[in-house]
Every structure is written in C-alpha cells, then in structure tokens.
C-alpha cells in the first residue's frame, strides 16, 4: 500500500510539472500529427489502402513520439541535482520507476487518443467501431514500451551522446511489441477471427509483465550513485 501511495505521489509531482511547463506533451502531439503528414507524402496513402496501412503507420508514429518523450523523461531530475534529492528521500526506488513509467504511459496514451482518430479522419478510414480495440492493442504495447523505455532512459543518464544511444538500445529490444501490436491491430481491422490475434495479445501481456517485473527488480541498481 505504502508503495502505491509513494508511486502515486511521485506521479502527481511529474503531472504537476508537466501541467505547468507543457513541454513534452505538446511536442509529442505536434510530432505525431506531423508524422502522419510526412507518411502521406512518403507513401501516398490512398483511401483504399489506408485501413491496411493503419497499424504500421500508427505504431511507427507512436514509437517515434514515445522516444521523443523518453529523452525528456528524466530531464526535471537532471536539473539542480533533483535526482540525488529523490534518491535520498525515504521512498522505495521501485516506486520511482513505476511512477516514471506510468507518467510516460500517460503522455503516450494521450497522444494516441488524438493521433489515432486523426489518422481515421485524414485518411478516411470508415471502421470507427474497430477503434476501441485498436486502442487496446496500442495501450498494451505502450505499457511495454514505457516500462523498458523508462529503464533505459535512467540507465543512459550518465552516457555521452545519450540522445542517439537511447533509441539505438530500445528499438531492437521492443521488436516483440512492434510485431505484436501491428499484427494484432491488423487482425482486428481485417475483422479476422479471434484465434488469429490472440497469440499477439498474449505476447503483449507477457512482455509487459516480464519487463515490469525485471524493471522493478533492477531499478535500484540503475540509479545508484
């Protein structure tokens, strides 16, 4: 209980900061919308193919926006030795990890809530009734992305060239989520049978559970000074 309360307070702190500065979220929104435009120029997304291409393009936009968010994730802690202050505070280190991952998840989920329908509108996709299920896959994938991303964002805090190193480390590791979300969304948009998308759903859940656990276990070492 104490653990969850600590995590909730830490999450509240980050939300308050974001509410006052509005740096990450607005940048991520803009970047997501911009990517949809660029995809259109690069691939000439036709109306007939828009639904078929939706999973890949949407998830690509999510991953790019998410990476952008991860680079900013520990920015408040880097200033004025806030990380050290946080580490000597009497809170469980794992709570810091869970709070940060939740914060990143929340930002990305907000971006998805805007960008997914925007895709539907911009490319005249008609399957509006499928959107909630597509969200579900997006959200499950985002949990795994946030968990792993938060861990590596903290891990690379002291590295030179962190901005380039971070995506280089995360992108290959999240390939199971990339495949699972895209294939799963694809099965849903094609109205395929449940049996086709179920393995991907299981894969997402397994990924989320494994790396959430691993993250909680190793985070103590990651941030030690």
């Amino acid at each position: 209980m104490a653990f969850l309360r600590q995590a909730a307070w830490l999450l509240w702190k980050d939300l308050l900061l974001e509410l006052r500065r509005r740096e990450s979220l607005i940048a991520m929104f803009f970047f997501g919308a911009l990517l949809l435009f660029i995809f259109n120029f690069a691939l000439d997304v036709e109306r007939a193919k828009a639904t078929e291409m939706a999973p890949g393009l949407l998830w690509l936009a999510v991953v790019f926006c998410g990476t952008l968010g991860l680079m900013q994730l520990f920015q408040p802690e880097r200033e004025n030795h806030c990380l050290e202050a946080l580490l000597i505070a009497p809170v469980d280190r794992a709570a810091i990890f869970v709070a940060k991952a939740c914060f990143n998840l929340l930002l990305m989920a907000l971006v998805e809530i805007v960008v997914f329908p925007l895709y539907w509108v911009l490319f005249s996709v008609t399957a509006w009734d499928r959107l909630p299920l597509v969200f579900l896959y997006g959200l499950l994938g985002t949990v795994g992305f946030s968990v792993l991303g938060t861990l590596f964002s903290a891990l690379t805090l002291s590295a030179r060239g962190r901005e380039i190193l971070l995506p280089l480390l995360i992108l290959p590791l999240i390939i199971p989520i990339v495949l699972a979300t895209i294939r799963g969304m694809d099965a849903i948009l094609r109205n395929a049978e449940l049996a086709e998308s179920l393995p991907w759903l299981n894969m997402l859940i397994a990924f989320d559970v494994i790396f959430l656990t691993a993250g909680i276990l190793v985070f103590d070492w990651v941030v030690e000074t």
Partner: protein
Amino acid sequence: MATKELKRSRGILGSLTLVFIAVGLYFGLVKAPPDANQGDLQRIMYLHIPSILTAYLSFFIVFVGSCMYLWKREQRDDILARSAAEIGVVFTALTIIEGSIWGRPTWGVWWTWDARLTLTAILLIIFAGYLMLRSLIEDEERGAVAGAVLGIIGFLDIPLIHMSVYWWRTLHQPPSILRPDKAPWENVHPAMLTALALNFVAFMLLYFYLLSLRIRVGESEAKAQRAVLEGTA
C-alpha cells in the same frame, strides 16, 4: 608465479585450437561427402552452425557474467561479460556473412526476412548496442552496472523476439540434424556428423582461446586505470 603457468596453458589452448581447426577443415572440405541436393555448397554448414552456436554460448556467458556482477560486484565478472559480448558480436556477424554467402546460390538472395535470420540480426544489433553503451559511459562502475542490466534484459528478451519473429514468418530450411522423427545418425551421413562435431570442437576451443586473451586485455586495462588513479591521487 601463476602468470607464467597461465601463459603456458593459454599457449597450449592456442595450439590445440590450431590443430582442431586444421583437422575440422580437412574433414569438412575433403572427408565429408557433398550434399545430395546442394553439392559442395552445403560445406559452408560446417562453419555456419558452429559459429552461431558459439555466438549463442557467448551471449549466455554475457548473461551469467552480468548476473554475477550485479550480485557480487567483482570486476572480473564484468570483464568476463564485456569480453564475451565483444566476441559474441564478432561470431554473430560471421554467421550472418556465411549465411549470406550460402543463401545467395541456394535461395537466390543474399538476405531474406526469415525468422531465424531476423533473430540473428536483432541479436547483433542488441549486443552491438551493448558495446556502444559501454564505450559511451566513462565512469567504470556505472558503465559496468549499465552493461549488466542490458546484458540481462537483452537475454530475457531473446525468447520473446524468437517467438514473435517465428509467428511472423519462417522460410529457413527446417533443422535436418535434430529431427523429432529420426535419430541424427539415421538421416545424415556419419562423415558429415563427424566433420560438424570436429568443427564444433574447433570453434569452442577458438572461442575460449579468444575469450582468455580478451579477458587478459580487460584485466590489463583495469590495472592501468587503477595505476593512473593512484598516480593522480
């Protein structure tokens, strides 16, 4: 003292490696019969399979060394993990190159997005990332911890990546040696198995020889660094 003995045993290991490589090559290139369908092309298998197995072993050693380091905090575990990662990357790259050379005449393409090929390429990228991470963190201990965490997470991720790319697609020729319906000696010519086994031993010896050399370099680096630190203090 012990260093001299260590040096001698390393020398013995090195010469043994050379002998086995020569014997393995002789058996693979001369003694083993050509394949019924692929002819002499198939002989690349005698290098291809040992190199990927060596790479897998290497990444397993990275995992073990990483766990040991986080647990005991001894520098030699970190040196072991880092050395194994470096050699693992080399062997993975070798595997992909050999596979490409084999794939071009048999499949008609240098590269295809088949499950096992993709998995191998992802492994190469992950552990190349490990090496990059290590070189970009200056603080020794911090770098060691970061590397250990990546070594563990990367290893945990392998089964998931494996499963996902497998479900995604598969075209690689199915395993012909370890088949559930037949024992290995029933469907493969014995001379082929001998050649493969010999090459496997040769690669293992080569691997441990390289690993011992790389660990020595790591130890010397650590020693030099300590000397510098003491000098400035």
